[in-house]
């Protein structure tokens, strides 16, 4: 069993699996049980300023996208930050941290956008023993209408300003949580870095309407006949989150800035993917809300087994390993040529590849009597749609044409690496030297 101990911006935890700031981390009862279950750390549910806490709606606060077996693919929520008094939260945080010194405990914060408010809250959390703070610049609903959350996260100048206040008034490590509801994720990350952030975490939830009630004509979840957009999370958002993490990890301006990866982490494999793309650890919300705290046991055993297989002795060896292989389209090798091939022994003759290629791709699959499907190499452009829609694993594979072989589609001999930057069809191509 590989050791999963992870140090993230100086904060040590027995594994890289933290619970994200959300209902699972809303109170002492939950967090104690989460630590008992094995979670390496938690980011406490976002705290607001002193005074009467925010209120939540009293109707449903979640919308959901289900797969056929009611598998939860995505959840959207209209919950706000904690609706419990600040003092209660602080007392509980202190008590939990005292009993679980080896676990990471981060406090998530969201207060109005003025220096006094931030100075005040930072002073109040000082003696909880918490390991750091996370600035919630992500919440896309409710709080944003009041000039907080993603209303701040969408303006890089505000991010920089607030981060600087926090670094001025506190010695705690500071993570800035980014909203994905922005067109270029690198900009807020750069701002956080300029403000002195120790790390960024992403993504918070995505603006969304999960479904529309077709009898009452209102979005779900419906509160007394009306709905509002909520924040989307869970497995469905993972591809979006992965890309955003990779963009920050490989950008010259933000390279090396520690990242806590969030968004759809459901299994050890999801976590490993985030880490390979540069996340130093991961945070989980929806998976815990769907299956309970116990899933961390699968994450721990799965990641350890994987690291053993790979011979990694520390999670640091995994972090960022795939980053050098994330590149721009223009640098992809245009002379890398593959052809789909169908394993006739595995083929169950469903014909899905045929329908896909014939109707929507390149008419490169032949259907012969007896429901035999074969690829026409002279038509196949290697899009791999057939492979994607094939229900049988490994039945369709992509065969790489070795250099020197003729591509029957173009009649050209396969040659070495060459990309778009020097392609004759590119008007901007640099003349070959």
């Amino acid at each position, binding site marked *: 069993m590989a050791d999963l101990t992870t140090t993230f911006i100086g904060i040590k935890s027995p594994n890289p699996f933290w619970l994200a700031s959300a209902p699972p981390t809303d109170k002492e009862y939950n967090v104690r049980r989460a630590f008992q279950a094995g979670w390496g750390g938690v980011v406490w549910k976002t705290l607001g300023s002193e005074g009467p806490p925010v209120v939540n709606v009293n109707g449903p606060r979640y919308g959901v996208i289900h*797969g*056929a*077996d*009611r598998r939860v693919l995505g959840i959207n929520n209209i919950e706000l930050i904690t609706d419990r008094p600040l003092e209660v939260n602080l007392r509980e945080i202190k008590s939990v941290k005292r009993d679980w010194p080896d676990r990471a405990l981060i406090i998530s914060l969201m207060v109005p956008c003025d220096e006094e408010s931030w100075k005040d809250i930072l002073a109040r959390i000082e003696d909880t023993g918490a390991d750091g703070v996370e600035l919630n610049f992500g919440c896309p609903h409710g709080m944003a209408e009041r000039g907080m959350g993603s209303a701040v996260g969408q303006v890089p100048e505000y991010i920089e300003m607030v981060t600087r206040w926090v670094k001025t008034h506190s010695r705690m490590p500071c993570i800035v949580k980014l909203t994905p509801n922005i067109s270029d994720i690198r900009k807020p990350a750069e701002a956080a870095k300029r403000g002195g952030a120790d790390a960024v975490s992403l993504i918070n939830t995505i603006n969304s309407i999960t479904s529309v009630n077709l009898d009452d004509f209102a979005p779900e979840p419906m509160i007394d006949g009306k709905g509002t957009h909520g924040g989307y999370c869970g497995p469905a958002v993972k591809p979006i989150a992965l890309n955003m993490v990779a963009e920050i990890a490989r950008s010259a301006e933000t390279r090396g800035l520690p990242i806590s990866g969030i968004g759809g982490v459901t299994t050890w494999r999801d976590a490993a993917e985030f880490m390979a793309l540069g996340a130093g650890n991961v945070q989980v919300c929806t998976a815990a809300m769907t299956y309970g705290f116990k899933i961390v046991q699968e994450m721990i055993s799965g990641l350890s087994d994987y690291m053993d297989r790979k011979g990694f002795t520390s999670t640091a060896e995994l972090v960022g390993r795939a980053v050098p292989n994330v590149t721009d389209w223009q640098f992809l090798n245009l002379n890398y040529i593959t052809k789909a091939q169908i394993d006739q022994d595995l083929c*169950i*003759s*469903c*014909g*899905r590849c*045929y*329908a896909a290629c014939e109707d929507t791709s390149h008419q490169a699959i032949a*259907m012969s009597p007896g*429901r035999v499907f074969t690829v026409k190499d002279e038509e196949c452009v290697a899009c791999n749609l057939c492979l994607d829609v094939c*229900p*049988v694993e490994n039945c369709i594979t992509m065969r790489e044409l070795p250099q020197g072989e003729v591509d029957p589609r173009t009649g050209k001999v396969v040659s070495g690496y060459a990309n778009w930057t020097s392609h004759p069809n590119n008007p901007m191509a640099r003349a070959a030297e």
Partner: protein
Amino acid sequence: MTNSQLTPGIVPGRLPPQAYAANFADIAPPLDAHEVRVAADRCYFCHDAPCVTACPTEIDIPLFIRQIATGTPEAAARTIFSQNILGGICARVCPTETLCEGACVREAAEGKPVEIARLQRHATDTLMARNAHPFTRAAPTGKRVAVVGAGPAGLAAAHRLALKGHDVTLLDARPKGGGLNEYGIAAYKTAGGFAQAELDWLMGIGGITLKPGLALGRDLTLAELQSGHDAVFLGLGLGGVNALRAEGEDKAHVLPATDFIRELRQAADLAALPIGREVVVIGGGMTAIDAAVQARLLGAETVTLVYRRSKAAMGASTVEQDHATQNGVRIICNAAPVRLLGNGAVAEVEFAYTEERETGLHLLPQTFRLKADQVFKAIGQTLEPVPEGIAIDGGKIAITGAGRTSISGVWAGGDCAQGGDDLTVAAAAEGRDAAMDIHLYLMGADHG
């Protein structure tokens, strides 16, 4: 006096009263809403799907399953009924392991096909539960067609003809319509009076007049029918049964399996239906299996099904064979009856073992006897009575094309006609296709 499974002879009430309802309950109860979604999601929506080809009525299965998956079971039902108006009974009785589900690519892939029949039942039940008829009749054509036999073939033909605007007279010799749906199919496949409910629902198209208790040959002749109608469709089924041709066949308590099943299907109280303690069923098809299983379910202590050829040659599919053995039926293959013994009533049956050689089936000298106080013969049905003046081929009404008989203006389909399997769904397909041919004939004739 209370009887038990051990009571000698042929007696009613062998089981505790509550056992009958459980034994004859729906064998494949409807899927619940969640099961439906999971089952529907397993369909790959194959291109030119093999299941469709395997269905004699060519229902667009991937389409109807997708309609179910997207929450529109009534649209799914219309897809089904547009090809096969008897989609409801077919969902219950089709031996799908040899039809659509046998052809499902997931059967090839993992030995677990998409549950097509149960999904079909979900769709058809949903629409029929509203008692809604999904189609509207075309404007009346003024043409009159007689359909003889209200079994699956006749019903499918009558419905399609009525749909096209023709006036249909539907006669049947028996007091109720439905054919073997009502009098033959195993009780646990058509639980809840489904056959009559389906018949009533089907008649909802309008334009069909059902005349039960009227037999062709007995009450009126084919020529009479023809003179009063523009066309005639014969869906007579197979009314006769093959003889064993074994010594002692005429002893008491030796009867056609179809008679036993008919009585069972019509029984108001199954506990009142007498059944033997030791029952022997002779035959290897669906009828033999159904008779054997239902004899067990009525409380017979031992039921032995004896078939003269190998297990592989049995007409009943392996699924049906397994169903029989699971219900405690003992199956003996490669044995043929030679003598029925007993004093007045049958008491024992003597069998000779058989061997299949190139020259045919041979009886071996080795024999054995089975105790039997009731013997059901299920070795095939025959066309009876044969309508006058019609060409016969291989014991069935000779046809060309979509059911055209040797007599102009007379069509035939279902079990009574040549070709196709003797299955409900095949009868439905043949009835429908003959109706379309009749329709073209009638309308073509109209326009010279």
